[in-house]
């Protein structure tokens, strides 16, 4: 190693220890990403805390093939560094298990998308699906491949369940099947069109992704606050999205437990929310509503109708939730299933319901409020901590309750304030900013770099990507039949992980 490379490595290591000191002091590790700048790679680490997200940029020397890994000092970087290795061919030296994650390639350092380098149009990459990782060895142990085409209507992912027959001592995940090259696609779009792709990055969190993207874009444009009616409409759609996602989890859990009537009723509740969203904006997923600077239009459903419908839904959902949580055969399947230890949740900075149910909460709506959340009352959060599938469902029902509360406030306010412009001026020129929003699954983070109105680099970090790695942790003591409960209780989307 030359003296120059040696000193660069020392610089990187110094940055990492500064980062881990900040995490130890209470900030939350929110992600690590790379940007190609010519022959050099710039690593950006994000830390979240009350009031905002800070970014540390570490530039590696041009042509560097490796750098000291962050994972040994900050375990939460585990998947982020594997992803860096896949996408940029860079080796985090000292990483405990550098196996392919997002893009297994037939030959090491094959064609790379070179994210951040606008001029590179990558050659097609066809992932190699034949190398199967295996970690637990012993007599009678075998691997059950579960996916990528699984039973039911679900997204493509492969779980490799390593088992002696019933217990699940270890589980591997292979995510590359639906890698769509989203990040590279962003680089071909004008900043104003980026929000359309953001909405399609993770379908079950379309509104949250659009919000996080627009918050970043608005910061670059110096827009400031969006008009008040627009801020309220954004909250309405974000909370309806949360309702849909949580009702979906309840449906899937009830279905896994064989409670046909409960699954049917929660399915109907979910359909009702989807129809309300569809009536409000023409899309059942709230797409096309959020635009840089505000919203595209007021809801096509008036505030009075909205309030009435929200009230009807609240009564129906609350009653069924109470009965579901009192159904002994159902509770028995969830209690103690897939527990995530509080300590692990905190170390990892687990997002959304997964973190909250284990006693770690960093809800962007409360700690880094945006849009109308700055003024609306979220209510005091209830204590959660046991971290099993039951606690995660209990927490979701609490959030459903909170969402109804927010919907009523926002619809009320909108009735008084629906005059005036719906979008502030938002000319996205050049600059870089981070935007965030609390999706039903947790915080979505966008790191956006724009030059002359053209996206140079856009990295969406979905809560699913951050949380899914915790799947490795929650199977201790659980058996194969617990699998559907644990998976449903996490409520994540593969689209946001594989990008």
């Amino acid at each position: 190693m030359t003296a120059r490379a040696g000193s660069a490595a020392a610089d990187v290591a110094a940055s990492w220890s500064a980062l881990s000191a900040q995490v130890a002091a209470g900030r939350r590790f929110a992600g690590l990403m790379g940007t190609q700048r010519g022959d050099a790679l710039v690593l950006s680490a994000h830390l979240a805390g009350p009031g905002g997200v800070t970014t540390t940029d570490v530039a590696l020397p041009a042509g560097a093939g490796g750098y000291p890994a962050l994972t040994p000092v900050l375990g939460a970087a585990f998947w982020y560094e594997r992803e860096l290795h896949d996408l940029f061919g860079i080796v985090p030296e000292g990483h405990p298990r550098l196996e392919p994650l997002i893009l297994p390639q037939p030959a090491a350092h094959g064609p790379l998308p070179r994210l951040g380098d606008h001029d590179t149009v990558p050659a097609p990459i066809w992932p190699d699906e034949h190398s199967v990782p295996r970690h637990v060895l012993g007599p009678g142990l075998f691997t059950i491949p579960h996916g990528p085409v699984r039973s039911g209507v679900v997204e493509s992912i492969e779980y490799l369940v390593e088992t002696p027959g019933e217990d699940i001592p270890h589980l591997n995940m292979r995510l590359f099947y639906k890698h769509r090259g989203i990040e590279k696609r962003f680089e071909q779009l004008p900043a104003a069109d980026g929000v359309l792709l953001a909405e399609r990055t993770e379908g079950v969190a379309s509104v949250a992704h659009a919000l996080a993207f627009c918050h970043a874009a608005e910061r670059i444009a110096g827009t400031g606050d969006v008009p008040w009616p627009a801020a309220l409409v954004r909250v309405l759609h974000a909370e309806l999205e949360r309702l849909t996602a949580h009702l979906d989890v309840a449906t899937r859990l009830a279905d896994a437990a064989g409670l046909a009537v409960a699954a049917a009723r929660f399915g109907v509740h979910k359909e009702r929310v989807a129809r309300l969203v569809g009536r409000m904006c023409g899309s059942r997923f709230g797409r096309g509503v959020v635009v840089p600077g505000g919203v595209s239009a007021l809801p096509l459903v008036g505030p009075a109708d909205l309030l009435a419908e929200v009230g009807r839904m609240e009564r129906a959902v609350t009653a069924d939730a109470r009965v579901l949580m009192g159904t002994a055969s159902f509770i028995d399947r969830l209690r103690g299933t897939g527990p995530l230890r509080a300590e692990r949740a905190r170390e990892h900075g687990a997002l959304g319901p997964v973190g909250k149910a284990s006693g770690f909460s960093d809800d962007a709506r409360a700690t880094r409020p945006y849009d109308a959340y700055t003024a609306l009352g979220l209510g005091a959060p209830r204590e959660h901590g046991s971290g099993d599938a039951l606690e995660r469902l209990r927490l979701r029902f609490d959030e459903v309750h909170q969402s109804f509360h927010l919907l009523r406030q926002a619809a009320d306010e909108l009735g008084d304030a629906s005059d005036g412009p719906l979008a502030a001026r938002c000319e996205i020129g050049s600059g870089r900013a981070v935007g965030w929003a609390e999706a039903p699954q947790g915080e979505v983070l966008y790191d956006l770099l724009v030059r002359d109105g053209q996206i140079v680099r856009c990295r969406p970090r979905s809560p699913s990507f951050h949380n899914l790695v915790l799947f490795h942790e929650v199977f201790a003591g659980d058996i194969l039949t617990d699998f559907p409960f644990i998976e449903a209780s996490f409520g994540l989307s593969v689209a946001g992980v594989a990008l």
Partner: protein
Amino acid sequence: MSPWVLRGLRDGVVTTRWPGRPDPYADTWRGPATVLEHHPAQGAEGAEGAEGAGAGEAAALAASTALAALAALCPAGAIGAAPGRGVAVDLGRCVLCGRCVIRRPDVFGWSPGSASAALTRAGLVVPAAAETEQGLAAVRAGLAARTRALRRSVHLRHVDAGSDGSEEQEIAALLNPVYDIGRLGIFFTASPRHADVLLVTGAGAHGMAEPLRRTYEGMPDPKLVIAVGTDAVSGGLLGGAAEGGSGSGSYATSGGVGTLVPVDVWLPGSPPPPFAILHALLLALGRLPARPEPEGGRP
């Protein structure tokens, strides 16, 4: 007694009667953007026909500039020129962002209802070319011959080939009591060996090409493939092939699933709602009643 027994009866029948009876939700749905029947940009038609005369050339130039301006409205590249017919929209590329409808309501509008699916890829281009109307009858006859044996016991297998996750939600909604797909003799199955219809979502991610091919090959004949969603039809915003073109998508996707499996029914939508998926299924099976929707599923 379990409290669920009475709760199950509480709201009465919530299930739609569609397609036997019309359903207002299906009929008032806002489908992909389309070209209005009469619009000012139709002037381009005459100009393209005119040859030689200087005035004709100037008019042609103005018309092509106008067309380019219209095409630039669409971030997904769905708007283009139809030779001799002025401006055309490829519904298979529409991501329903609504920009064209908002900026040029005199030229573009939403296609009403849930009958978005078509039996040919070319059938998704509006206005339709004359020859596709003729070809449609042959396609329909061929499909009917294949599906005759399926009758009222049809099993579906879904494969996600790189979707954003929303299409899965809408397909799964078919199982809820509002749509209750089982009442039509249509069921989901886990095994490709038991499946008659393959629902494919997503832009055709390269990683899913092999698993998708194996699933398709594992299905017994006769089998049908439905591309569900704009991504599956054309790659959508992820980039890919326009109708008639052979774009290759991106480094990670194939520009729709049409190059990976033989698609029988093309259903655009971002994502298509459950009624549109139901319509596509019945269109594939030749079980749409003659009344509610016009021929070919296109308004």
